[in-house]
């Protein structure tokens, strides 16, 4: 029984194929407005490492921002459920999940079966999101990966007066002109993202164990700040960006097992 999960986020599209409970292959590709074809592009990329073709997949679940436009999807499930299901597969003791993606951040509670019991989304402002990191990174001329390292070289505490991305841009420009160190700015940025994330977590119940998913989880600076603010250890999956697709694939597998019985 072969199932597949596709997560079409706002910045990247991801696909995972599972055969009999084992992840057979996964793929990720950057997508800027390739829209409809992106689902098949990322699916082909995943199929390439296997001997399978699209018709061999028995059940496909799609999730993410563009989940409704995938022609070959059998079922559509929200990214909130898929993130919970995916991380639960890695860490069955997880009950609280923080996902910071490209355009929004989510705080999710789940039960022992990895199904969601409460959630809170912050997508009114892009302040606490990956896009914020990306834009400021461009101004500082620092890649997302380098940001994590820079964070630990910081000395002074810098705080941003606004979480609006556009106005933070001009604030960063002024900071550079005043000669403030890039590492301090980056640390200040991570702090403001962690503050937004923490206030989101407070709006659901902060039950142990806490895990983090989404691209920003790869940034050790943000992770350190969130650990500091919540006082909880963070469980980090090896590939935090793929959790949504993994969850979708697991849901697809559940459906097959249900049908099988």
């Amino acid at each position: 029984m072969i199932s597949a999960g596709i997560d079409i986020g706002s910045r990247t599209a991801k696909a995972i194929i599972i055969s009999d409970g084992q992840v057979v292959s996964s793929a990720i590709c950057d997508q800027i407005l390739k829209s409809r074809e992106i689902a098949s592009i990322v699916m082909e990329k995943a199929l390439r490492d296997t001997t399978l073709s699209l018709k061999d997949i028995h059940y496909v679940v799609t999730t993410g921002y563009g989940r409704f436009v995938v022609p070959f999807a059998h079922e559509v499930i929200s990214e909130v459920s898929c993130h919970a299901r995916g991380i639960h597969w890695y860490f069955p003791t997880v009950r609280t999940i923080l996902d910071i993606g490209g355009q929004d951040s989510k705080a999710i509670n789940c039960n022992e079966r990895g199904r969601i019991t409460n959630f809170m989304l912050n997508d009114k402002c892009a302040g606490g999101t990956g896009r914020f990191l990306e834009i400021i990174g461009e101004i500082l001329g620092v890649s997302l990966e380098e940001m994590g390292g820079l964070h630990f070289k910081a000395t002074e505490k810098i705080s941003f007066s606004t979480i609006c991305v556009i106005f933070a841009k001009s604030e960063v420009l002024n900071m550079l002109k005043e000669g403030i160190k890039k590492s301090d700015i980056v640390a200040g940025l991570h702090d403001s993202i962690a503050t937004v994330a923490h206030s989101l977590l407070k709006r659901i119940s902060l039950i142990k164990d806490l895990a983090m998913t989404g691209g920003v989880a790869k940034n050790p600076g943000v992770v350190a700040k969130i650990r500091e603010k919540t006082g909880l250890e963070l469980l980090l999956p090896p590939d935090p960006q793929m959790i949504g697709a993994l969850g979708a694939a697991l849901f697809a597998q559940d459906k097959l097992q249900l049908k099988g019985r």
Partner: protein
Amino acid sequence: MENLEMVEKLRQVNASFPYTEPIKRWKEKGKKVVGWLCNYVPEEIIHAAGMLPVRLTADSKELEMPDGDAYLHIYSCSFTRSIFQLAKEGQFDFIDGFVATAMCDGSRRLADVLNEYKILPLIYTLGVPRKFGDRAEALYRGEILNCKKKIEDFFDIEISDEAIKESISVYNRTRQLLRRLYDLRKSSNPPISGAETLEVLNASVRMDREEFNQILEKLLQELEERRMSSEGKTRLMIDGSILNNIEFIKGIEDLGGLVVVDGVCNGARYWDGMVEDGFEPISALAHYYLNKFPCPRFYPPGVRTDRVLDLIKAYQVEGVIYEIIRYCNTHTWDYPILKSQLDENGIPILELDLEYGTGASGRIKTRVQAFLEMLQEKKEAK
């Protein structure tokens, strides 16, 4: 599941909003149309004056509101700014005058601006008490009388008590019929969806009432035979700010929700209860309007929350979706109170902040779908 013929008829009416076909026919007969803004304007008075009461609203799309934003501050909600935009564009020119109430700052400011810039003539702003009880009813009765006098002076006409009694019976008829429509949605397989019900509610305040009652009677007959399975669907209640957008409810129902009841002011709060006959008509109206399913601004707030809890039991609601138009203070402040009551009763509630006229955008679909998945899990875990 075939379309309901009568709902189709009402959809045609809504499609020609704001100057709908029935209103056009009414105006061509040389009769007058009076707009009204809030649930606590007694429509019967306008109807008794031989005029067509039409509710001032906008509709199912998020309007671009350059004039709305220019004349009304952004802190007036997008509902009031949408109405101003349509009025400024001349789409409400068929309205000969309108009646507002002092229920919320937004509608008061809208009435101020429409009148000041001579876009729509304001006949009267009804002062509505915020408490229940005889004294409040007496004050409100006085206000209804003032409103009647103002309409009489404005159009230089007389409104007799018999005419008001006649109008009361017409409007009571609608309340009866809508109650029967809602009762049908208590069944485990409601014959009418939330989107279709809203189509009916929207049309009710955009056409003359006698014609609407006839269509509603035929619709109820149609619904006798209609079979609709709601297997695998989640029974929802929609509450919060005024909601006229069919697309919003359709978006929720496409995701597997089934809206069986609501707590919005153009829904259950609009037709609840009956005006008692055998009393002096104005007092009967005051008593009815003040004691129906109340708006959150009334005291004590417990009266409203109890009614919501009763509805949840009666319609076996599994989850409440509470939509709030940004800057709508009445419902922004109602939500924490209702939420604490529902938490205590173990009923999940999802808060959606949106603009008036918003369809089911990506952001809203994600939340609603996750909410439905959560409710599904809750049902399976039981």
